[in-house]
């Protein structure tokens, strides 16, 4: 089912066009890697605030609201360039264990964010200015750091297809 989809995409003229272009693929790849600084860099700063490792004198909501637009800009660039990379060579990714590990970790990182924002962040008014956020917020921050580190490591390893 999924394999059919990947095969169909691989056969699309647009996919072939990027695959055969000398410059497009490297450019998209570079955009994907460098927007890491904007997206993950600022997500990491927010996570570090949650684990009380930076900006302890700033309210959590201030850090969250001020960094959020930049994180979302970075996410948009990462998502578009990432989808394009898979779009270009779907079958290479389909058979790559690190790709699926990365996708799994991304889903888990996303779930962690949802749990945080619908959970302890709903009561942020009670702990906004605390230098050390409550345990569940610190766990969310720590989990985010670990999961996204895994995303980066697996992402890098996609280039090395050791296991097929």
């Amino acid at each position, binding site marked *: 089912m999924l394999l059919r989809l990947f095969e169909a995409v691989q056969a699309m003229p647009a996919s072939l066009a990027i695959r055969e272009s000398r410059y497009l693929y490297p450019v998209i790849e570079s955009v994907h890697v460098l927007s890491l600084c904007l997206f993950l860099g600022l997500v990491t700063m927010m996570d*570090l605030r949650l684990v009380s490792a930076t900006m*302890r*004198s700033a309210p959590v909501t201030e*850090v969250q609201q*001020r960094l959020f637009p930049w994180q979302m800009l970075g996410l948009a660039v990462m998502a578009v360039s990432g989808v394009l990379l898979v779009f270009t060579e779907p079958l290479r990714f389909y058979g790559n264990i690190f790709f699926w590990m990365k996708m799994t970790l991304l889903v888990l990182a996303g779930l962690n964010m949802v749990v945080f924002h619908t959970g302890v962040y709903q009561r942020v008014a009670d702990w906004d200015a605390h230098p050390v956020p409550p345990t569940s917020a610190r766990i969310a921050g720590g989990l985010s750091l670990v999961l996204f580190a895994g995303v*980066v490591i697996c992402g*890098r390893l996609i280039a090395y297809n050791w296991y097929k």
Partner: protein
Amino acid sequence: MELLPVIEWLEHTGAGTAIRDSTWLFPCIEAGHLLALALMGGSVLLVDLRMLGLGVTRLPVAQVCRDARPWLIGSFVVLVVTGVLLFLSEATKCYLNPAFWIKMAFLIAGTVFTFAVRQRVALAGGAEVDPAMARRVAVISVVLWSGVGIAGRAIAFY
């Protein structure tokens, strides 16, 4: 003095050879380089955004700069160490690669600018920094570090 013999000697040091001969060492060091890149990107942008008046404006520039500093320095050290290891394993290839030298030029400029100029401007006075000056410094910082990143990525394309 000729540089190439030195480069060739570096490539044949124990570390260079070990990384080249191992299947997984190079990719793992690369992954560490990337993780530190994300952290350094975040700690540079946190301060630059604040200097542009766009970031965590509740805190003074100097405070944001002090808060980001340990992460900036820590990630910078990891980037340099992992970068040197990656270089050792393919020193001759880097030597012949124009993107590598462009990256080194941006890296030196970015490092000097960040630690000699930007940190000084951001930490100066303790009160507020002249906003126009802060903006100029932040733009230069973003441009220099983007140059390092783009040229670094381009090393793989030569």
